[in-house]
């Protein structure tokens, strides 16, 4: 049986001789092993226990990495040293690939957000550059990994919510004609509704009678009620008005698909994320979160009034606030939440990692907007705060719903393994152990 000390020596020797040509590595290994055995004998003679003697002898050898560097300098040419260094580095990078890829994706996504903000890419009528980026990352993830990696969740989230408005409102809508005017606004939300319906039915069938589902259904009802409330009650000239009665039949016909689309988009990511949770519990929460960012920024557009006033009556405060309100949700969604989630092993920790950044973003965004708009016609009033609260609830509810579903069906192990055996669905057996492939 291998003792811990023997395993430690083996690891030390492997590290010290890594990258050396095979015969030389063998000779060096023999020499170092002899050194170690001599040291152990001396420690035993001085009265140490075998375990303590081996531990002390290994400590005396020092840092294996320093020894390896020294041996490489003596025995390898410059080119061979470079190859050895790369050979040493790649497995270490691979080991931390989820964190590295997540950070890289986050930084690229943030750069796009910054570029978009500075150069007004989307305001000039160009398609949103983040959506194709997200599409590329998700596709790359599926092609290379054949499974969703952690870094692709915000991308997937952005894609799920962003792809339709990108295709539909930026380009195709302008084509005009009866199809694009009437059919398309119904077909696209209809397709989403279908996905949600199928996902919902599957969930319903598999979770019938399970404890906790009542909370999920309650949240779903609350979410739809909030969506209806934000549609019916609108903020006009600083006051809340019940707007449905003021709308004409034509306005209702035009607005209905949009409201349907928003309603479906609020819930669909949760349903899709839950299906993804069959393979990786984390997707159940991160996909909705990514979607919320897209919905929050793309549809609610918290910078709208700030951008308007910044262009009309430019001031340093407005400019700073507008930049903060633009970058804050992106930083939280693309960097803070995924990395926090990735480094948190406990279920409670992940729940906090999902809820705290999202909640903080919402609160800070509104507080900052209130500061920025303080001396303008759009200054925050009690009605504005009430309306903002309702809107915030609209973004937080799907996340809370996702958390509830994640706690009911998600996999704890999946987050740390981040590469999971996806042969059996977690929903079929929630207690199934997930096997890390790393």
């Amino acid at each position: 049986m291998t003792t811990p000390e023997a395993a430690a020596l083996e690891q030390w020797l492997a590290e010290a001789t890594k990258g050396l040509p095979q015969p030389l590595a063998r000779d060096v290994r023999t020499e170092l092993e002899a050194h170690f055995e001599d040291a152990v004998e001396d420690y035993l003679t001085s009265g140490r226990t075998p375990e303590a003697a081996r531990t002390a002898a290994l400590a005396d050898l020092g840092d294996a990495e320093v020894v390896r560097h020294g041996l490489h300098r003596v025995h390898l040419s410059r080119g061979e040293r470079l190859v050895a260094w790369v050979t040493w580095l790649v497995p270490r990078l691979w080991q931390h690939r989820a964190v590295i890829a997540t950070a890289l994706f986050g930084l690229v996504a943030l750069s796009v957000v910054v570029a978009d903000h500075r150069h007004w890419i989307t305001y000039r009528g160009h398609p949103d550059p983040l959506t194709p980026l997200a599409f590329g990352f998700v596709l790359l993830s599926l092609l290379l990994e054949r499974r969703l990696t952690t870094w692709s969740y915000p991308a997937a989230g952005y894609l799920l919510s962003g792809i339709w408005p990108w295709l539909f409102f930026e380009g195709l809508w302008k084509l005009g004609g009866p199809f694009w005017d009437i059919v398309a606004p119904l077909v696209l939300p209809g397709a989403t509704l279908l996905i949600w319906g199928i996902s919902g039915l599957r969930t319903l069938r598999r979770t019938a009678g399970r404890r906790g589902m009542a909370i999920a259904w309650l949240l779903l009802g609350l979410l739809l009620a909030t969506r209806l409330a934000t549609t019916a009650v609108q903020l006009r000239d600083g006051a809340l008005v019940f707007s449905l009665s003021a709308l004409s039949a034509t306005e209702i016909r035009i607005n209905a698909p949009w409201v349907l689309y928003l309603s479906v988009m609020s819930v669909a990511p949760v349903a899709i994320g839950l299906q993804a949770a069959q393979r990786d519990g984390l997707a159940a929460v991160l996909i909705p979160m990514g979607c919320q960012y897209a919905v929050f920024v793309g549809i609610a557009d918290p910078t709208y009034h700030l951008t308007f006033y910044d262009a009309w009556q430019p001031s340093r405060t407005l400019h700073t606030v507008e930049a903060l309100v633009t970058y804050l949700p992106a930083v939280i969604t693309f960097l803070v939440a995924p990395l926090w989630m990735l480094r948190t092993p406990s279920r409670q920790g992940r729940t906090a990692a999902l809820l705290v950044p999202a909640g903080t973003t919402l609160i800070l965004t509104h507080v900052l907007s209130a500061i920025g708009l303080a001396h303008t016609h759009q200054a925050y009033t009690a009605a504005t705060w009430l309306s903002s609260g309702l809107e915030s609830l609209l973004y937080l509810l799907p996340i809370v719903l996702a958390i509830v579903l994640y706690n009911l069906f998600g996999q704890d192990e999946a987050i740390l393994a981040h590469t999971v055996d996806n042969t059996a669905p977690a929903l079929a057996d929630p207690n199934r152990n997930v096997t890390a492939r790393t």
Partner: protein
Amino acid sequence: MNMTGSLPLLILHALSRGASYGYAIAKQIKASSSDVLDFQEGTLYPTLHKLEKDGLVEAYTTLTNGRQRLYYRLTEAGERALEAERAAWMTYARAVNAVLGEAK
């Protein structure tokens, strides 16, 4: 104590007393300096191999107490290098001592 740069000289000196192997050389250096000169013993081997590559020491295998050991001994070039290094070190040490003595 930081031994950066002086390990080759110490190894050559240890081997001037006769052929030896890695662990014994490390022990000898530590004992001779009353454990003032301490170092990570594994780092001895890259230095030994460098000296061998430079032709200052040569290695040979021998069987001692049923265990195969790699011994090192000084070559003629090694003896000359030891004398030169020792002289350089003494000059350096005298210079440092002179400066420190002056400071008193």
